């Protein structure tokens, strides 16, 4: 167990990290966002009817490894990601940040999110929770090894898709 003081400091650090991450995504600074990820990072969104699924045995909405995450960013910043050309405006509210466990360099944290996306006079809302696995780096900073966005939606209706990074 961490002391109360230490755990408050850690939660503050994780909160700051997640708020900064949200700002990079909202500002479409996706190359910089990639810098927050480890070399073996994953980004998952389970299907809305299997929130506890495993991408090896159930169908997801997104189950990217680091190669696909990088490709996704490259595509989103390129000319041919029609669903995001022109880019959406997004606004992320990240809250209820909780540090769930600390084991060596590995910190597990969860947070709630509401992501608002506007584009072409349409407003889409994505609500859910994040499950993060963060890793303490040699320089003292944090990086993301696992990033799972679990939607509290019955379906992607009327959102229709997840074309932004959620």
């Amino acid at each position, binding site marked *: 167990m961490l002391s109360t003081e230490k755990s408050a400091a850690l939660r503050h650090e994780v909160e700051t990290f997640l708020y900064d991450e949200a700002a990079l995504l909202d500002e479409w600074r996706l190359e910089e966002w990639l810098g927050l990820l480890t070399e073996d990072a994953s980004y998952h969104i389970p*299907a*809305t009817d299997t929130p506890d699924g495993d991408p*090896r045995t159930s*169908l997801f909405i997104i189950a990217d490894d680091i190669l696909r995450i990088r490709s996704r960013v490259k*595509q989103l910043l390129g000319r041919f990601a029609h669903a995001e050309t022109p880019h959406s405006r997004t606004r992320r509210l990240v809250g209820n940040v909780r540090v769930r466990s600390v084991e060596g360099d590995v910190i597990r944290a969860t947070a709630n999110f509401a992501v608002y996306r506007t584009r072409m006079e349409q407003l889409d809302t994505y609500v859910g929770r994040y499950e993060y696995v963060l890793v303490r780096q040699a320089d003292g900073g944090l990086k993301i090894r696992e990033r799972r966005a679990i939607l509290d939606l019955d379906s992607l209706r009327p959102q229709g898709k997840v074309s932004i990074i959620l």
Partner: protein
Amino acid sequence: MAQPGDFRARRVAGRPVILVRSDDGQVRVLLNTCTHRGALVCRTQSGNARSFQCAYHAWTFNSRGELVGVPGEDAYSLSFDRKDFALAQPRVDSYRGFVFVNFTPEGESLSDYLAGAKEFLDLVCDQSEVGMEVVPGAQLYSMRANWKLLVENSFDGYHGLPTHQRYFQFLVETGGLDMTERLPGRALALGNGHAVIEYEPPWGRLVAQWNPVFGETKKAEIETVYAKLEAKFGAEWARRVSRTSRNLLIFPNLIINDLMAVTIRTFFPVSPDYMEVSAWALEPQDESAEDRAIRLDNFLTFLGPGGFATPDDVEMLESCQKGFANREVMWSDISRGMNRAEPVPTDELQMRAFWRRWHDLLTLRPTKAEAQRAA
């Protein structure tokens, strides 16, 4: 749905239904409406149940839909007969494990209805020696567009490169084929509005076309799968099962696309400019854990609301819907390939097959069976 009592609650054509394996082993579709006062008797999406009890007044129905429990039954008259209150069952038939429901009590058989589409369902199902199954996890999404646009889009070889350039770039970067030429293959009308495109794809298929993304170690294994298919079905059928892809429309709104993975997709209009889409992954029951993971991974590169392709389809169809506000453009032109004796997948014969059937139905042109009944 292997065990008695396994059920799925679904909405089909706007109607709540329960697909259930009854205690006698038979698969039934029960209308999810209490025969007492109309409430849903099943309000969970899936599970296993010996019976369905309406929460409103606790009428209880068994897995065959029979009414087996009525609290305070003595308040009803002597003529009250539980048999009159079974959950209604629409016509149900299945082909290769695909269960179809028909809300009209009579009409042609499923086999007659499917017509030439059966051959292509066979090609999909012959990937497995024991049968295919739907993997857990449904992609439930929507499009702010007319449902018929998704019919066209689901087997439109022409849109592949411009709409999905980013996917094909990704494919080339990860060792897939460069698809700068047209898709070698064909387009066929299969009767009753069903249609298909069948072609040699640029992506790998575990059954059984090796691709660098699978890694060298899978090469021999995939050869073995191919050899087995050849021994069982002969060279031509084996080639079609494994080395061709197909985008199949079962008229009017069921798509089975056998690509880098197999997706089942169905969609229903909610209004002229909005549809709900549901999609699943179909995989061999007997595949290894490793192959299942690879197939699911392949699926997600292209397909679904978070893939590298489908979101752009959603964007394009919604873009069409917006564009249609200008009535001066009166028609969608789907004449590609009309100058060819044998249209190819980048032509539009498959769309014409759909629209012709749709037009027949909208103009009340009777089918042969209906004409006979009228006479």
